[in-house]
């Protein structure tokens, strides 16, 4: 069992969730509550990582973050080291390829709130912040929880993009998915099996907990 790979994967998943949670709430809420020109194109762009092969996405991210790109150069001038093949680069890639997994469930969660409930909040004198905090977030909670779990589990299991952008540097970019691949390549099926089982259990627990919490919330609300 490669504990450092597991720890790195958990760290990456947690950081991705922490970044995408506020971003997803903001974008999901905006997409659910407002209609604007070009909304369909924005939604299509955000859903793109779902349909692109991970290697294609990984390639573009590699180009975007490489030393020849403005982003890569800016990062290197500030931090004195390249963005690609670093944990930070991996995190940026992880945030980008998880956008649809975070935003879409949250958007559906906000869309499920009846418009009259928002109107009622306004007529009660609630500010937008209060409405978001007290009314919309609790009601969109199942969607937000789904987004968190999906993002977390998807980050743990992502392989193609991680390999393209991060390589396989132990302790820096070698995630558990890469470690499993390495073990299989080295004919260590027992090691690969243990790590695969660990990934399976963690993912199952996360998704199971999300389903349980969501159904519990629904049954409380619907009597």
């Amino acid at each position, binding site marked *: 069992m490669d504990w450092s790979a597991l720890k790195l994967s958990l760290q990456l998943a947690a950081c991705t969730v922490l970044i995408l949670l506020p971003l997803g709430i903001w974008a999901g809420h905006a997409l659910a509550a407002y209609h604007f020109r070009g909304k369909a194109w924005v939604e299509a762009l955000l859903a793109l990582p779902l349909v692109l092969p991970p290697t294609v996405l990984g390639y573009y991210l590699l180009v975007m973050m490489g030393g020849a790109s403005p982003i890569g150069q800016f990062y290197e001038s500030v931090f004195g080291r390249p963005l690609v093949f670093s944990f930070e680069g991996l995190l940026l890639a992880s945030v980008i390829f998880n956008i649809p997994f975070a935003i879409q469930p949250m958007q559906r969660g906000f869309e499920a709130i*009846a418009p009259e409930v928002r109107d009622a909040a306004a007529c009660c004198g609630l500010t937008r912040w209060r409405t978001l905090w007290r009314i919309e977030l609790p009601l969109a909670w199942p969607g937000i929880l789904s987004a968190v779990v999906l993002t977390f589990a998807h980050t743990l299991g992502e392989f193609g993009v991680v390999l393209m952008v991060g390589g396989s540097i132990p302790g820096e970019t070698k995630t558990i998915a890469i470690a499993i691949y390495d073990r299989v390549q080295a004919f260590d099926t027992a090691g690969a099996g243990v790590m695969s089982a660990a990934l399976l259990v963690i993912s199952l627990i996360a998704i199971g907990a999300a389903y349980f919490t969501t159904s519990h919330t629904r049954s409380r609300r619907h009597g």
Partner: protein
Amino acid sequence: MAEQGIHVRLQQSGPIPLDAELRCAPGEVLALVGPSGSGKTTILRAIAGLLRVRHGLIHCNGDRWFDDERHLWVEARRRRVGYVFQNYALFPHLSALHNVMEAMLELPVVERERRARDVLARVRLAGLENRVPAALSGGQQQRVAVARALAREPQVLLLDEPFSAVDRATRQRLYRELAELRRELAMPVILVTHDLDEAMMLADRMCVLHQGRTLQSGDPYAVMTRPHTVEVAQLVGLRNVFRAGVVGHDVERKVTIIEWRRHRLEARLQPDFRAGQQVTWAIPQGHLVLHRRDRPSRGERENPVSGTVLEYLPLGENVALTVAVNGPDRPPLFLTVPVHTARRNNIAQGVEIRVSLLAEGIHLMPADESRTPAKPG
């Protein structure tokens, strides 16, 4: 001194056309009635600040909430409006108590809870404060919605078809409760409904809307029995609408005489119409009296007409009769009588009956060719 109550004038050509003006005094219940899509809810939403209309003004107790000429627009949360939505729009994850408390955020928490409990007790929900909406019946949910609307101490109370989502028995109980509650309310109350009986029961005044236009306002009974136009007559459900010519007026007897088909009918004196003028006239069903066969009936000498029953349609305790007067090809007279009356008088399809048209109920309107029903006469 600032005008008390609410004054609303809204105009726009689209997307929802509006040309409406209404006033409602403190303590008064104004019913907005009209068919689906007539703009009733749109007006309520504009008053609440949930919808911005192009032109117009909304003044409430001296406060200006909207005035397009002054580019003034007060957002919904800054207007003190109590709004009871059609499906109540309660916050489903909050208890009845917290639903009400959310409407009083300017108060300290302790005071908020005390007041919320008071308001809930006022709508007879004491003991159910901790239940979430899903654990309450439809009638109880409606009461929470009313309590939440009142908790804000609103300057105007808006009720959007508040009885449409409950069963009939609950509705009857809620009518009584609202009738009792309204005696304590000092603010204008605007009730949106498509149920004319509801409007008659609960409202002091009624305003008929069609395609975003306010057509007539006034005492509900007056609007229902004395519509200004054929359009209003049709909207308030008057089915007996015909065309006639004015013969003249007998001021001493306080009657106006009209000629309808081959009958000379006496109507309540309506001197605004001159002799020889073509008019449309209407009569509510309550002013039609069926003559008994076995003995004289009350008012049978008042405008008697005879006709043949074209259709006999039992509807619960009543029977709806369609009666051809002066031939089956002309618009018939519609009449509803109790089943026992129909049976006692052996009424059936094809039978000849006599009916009196009570003069007090005959209401004249300007002839409006474009809006009279097909084949009037």
